[in-house]
């Protein structure tokens, strides 16, 4: 057996933590997009990830479509589910308060999970890794090629979102709804369309997360809730509504879990992440990169 030094162990924990954290970060970004436009915490966010993974398995493995075709098709299908969620569960609610809308998303997540169970059953499914499963050895640690895809898609998502919100009219209109929906509609922005778009966007990002993580961890119908909880933790840690915060929060959560499991005890790894989360909330209630002024004017 080759030398397995403490340094390479640490490096391995870091790699693992960043990979897991990237998935949390992508879920967290999805939360933030919808939160920014509607102030809703969409608790069906994890279900988008699950659907992304399972639909991709269906198209790529069962139906035999090539990766390059199945990938965008999956994202489109999940995006449609996200839009349907807005049209069927969110928009029809009369006299919406933030709380009733959040409860509606819980109901939607249960329904989506149930439907997925009927379609795919309860077994986990696997997806071939995008570029094989031969691990890369680096500084004594092993890295699955799929890790790079996870990290790469996170970076690509961040770049595209930044461009979208900073440079395009639609993106700016969405940001305007986030700042003040009443003022936004006064200047002619169709807030309802923006809400629909926010659901579509976060569903698409959830789908990408699901597609990239399935080759690493498999996917089954009830995985969504756990991802949603971890992603929500990342959102709160980074600051509700902040995209850089979501990424930072996700990566920190993943890394703490990994180091905690490796260096202290794996039984308490979730506790470590939560302790850090609580500590941050005590010291800076708005989260690492959140702004206290903004959180004061929000309803939730």
């Amino acid at each position, binding site marked *: *057996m*080759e030398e397995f030094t403490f340094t390479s162990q640490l490096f391995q924990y870091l790699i693992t933590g960043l990979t897991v954290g990237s998935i949390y970060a992508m879920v967290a970004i999805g939360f933030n997009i919808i939160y920014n436009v509607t102030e809703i915490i969409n608790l069906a966010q994890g279900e988008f990830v699950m659907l992304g993974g399972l639909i991709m398995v269906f198209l790529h493995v069962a139906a035999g479509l090539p990766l390059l075709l199945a990938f965008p098709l999956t994202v489109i299908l999940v995006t449609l589910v996200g839009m349907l969620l807005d049209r069927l569960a969110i928009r029809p609610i009369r006299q919406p308060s933030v709380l009733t809308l959040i409860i509606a998303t819980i109901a939607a997540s249960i329904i989506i999970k149930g439907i997925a169970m009927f379609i795919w059953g309860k077994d986990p499914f696997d997806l071939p890794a995008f570029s094989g499963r031969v691990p890369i050895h680096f500084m004594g640690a092993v890295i699955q090629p799929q890790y790079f895809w996870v990290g790469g898609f996170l970076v690509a998502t961040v770049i595209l979102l930044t461009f979208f919100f900073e440079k395009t009219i639609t993106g700016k209109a969405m940001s305007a709804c986030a700042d003040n929906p009443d003022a936004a509609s006064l200047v002619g922005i169709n807030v309802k369309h923006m809400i629909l778009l926010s659901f579509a966007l976060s569903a698409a990002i959830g789908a990408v997360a699901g597609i990239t993580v399935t080759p*690493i961890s498999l996917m089954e119908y009830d995985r969504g809730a756990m991802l949603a909880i971890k992603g929500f933790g990342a959102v709160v840690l980074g600051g509700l509504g902040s995209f850089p915060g979501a990424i930072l929060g996700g990566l920190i959560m993943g890394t703490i879990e990994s180091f905690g499991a490796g260096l202290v005890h*794996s*039984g308490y790894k*979730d506790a470590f992440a939560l302790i850090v989360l609580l500590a941050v909330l005590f010291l800076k209630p708005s989260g690492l990169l959140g702004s206290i002024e903004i959180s004061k004017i929000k309803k939730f």
Partner: protein
Amino acid sequence: MPKKFVLIATVFLFCMGVVIAPALADSYKVGAVFAVTGRASFLGDPEKKTVVMLAEQINKAGGINGKKLELIVYDTEGDATKANLAVKKLITQDKVCVVLGPSLSGNSLAVVPLAAQYKTPLISAAASYKIVTDEAGNQRKWVFKVPQSDTMAVEAIYTRLKKLGLTKIAIMSATTGFGKSGHGQLVALAPKYGITILADESYGPKDTDMTAQLTKIKGIGPQAIVNWTVGPTQVVVLRNWKDLGMTNIPFYQSHGFGSKKNIELAAGAAEGVLAPLGACNTPEALPANHPQKQVTMDYMKAYTAKYNEPVASFGGHGWDALMLAVNALKAVGCDRAAIRDHIENTKGFVGQHGIFNFSPNDHNGLVWQDAFNMIVVKDGDWALAK
């Protein structure tokens, strides 16, 4: 008009019931409560399918002593209250000769008092030893169970490790009921076999990656790894184990690993992995002279032909429970006390999950040597480990 139709239909159906009911009276009633739907449906669904299939086979072959086997199956949805109500209904209203199930240990414990109260034999399809053993350590008079206990799986693994001289091990388990129960037995039995646990790691049932835990284990360098979980984590952990280049450390899975799907999902990473499995998980890997070869092959062929899905080990528990009851009915007829006595004295019953030898001191009837074969994954298939 439709109203009239409904009325006529109702009357007609009612008459049918009156006509049919006496025809059914000449039958043996066997009740079953399984978690057919709900969170534990992976247990109850194959159990129900199995007993329904067996009842059809038995009735087609002329029934039991010329009487039909009438099976009444209720769904507990994995809920202890529903299980309790269903068992009560089976005993008091349906007047069954014997009750099979429930599927879950918790549900079984909830109905155990009913069996004694109504003096009706109950054959549980759940694993916990507490189902058949009361607080004082005695066997509950009216209750039996067919699945193996965790202890037996641990004994099977530890015996092999000791024989091979692999006494410094790492254990991993999921933070689920199954994982925790196995973990408890792994820790408790280690000293008896002279085994030292160098690392004791755990993970959540929905965790995406176990690399961190395995990295720690790799740094410690044990002689073997024993992992206790069901579901996707038991596959993911194998992939991480292979990726980290740890295949020189033998990897043992629990008896929950017995589905060929797991080998498939591991995408090559399951090669060389060992697990103690009941005979019905791996009928093809058994030698022709194995006592359970015939029953497990027959069951597998019939089940896959009828339902077009692979046999799950839980279905085997349904098989064992029903066939024990059928044997008793054949011998003593529908007399609850006599059935109980017959089951308690059953010896050498060749079932799906072992050869059962019941006694007043053992209402499970299994020892690990008869209940488990050590199986290794070889060329993507099960094989007996040497």
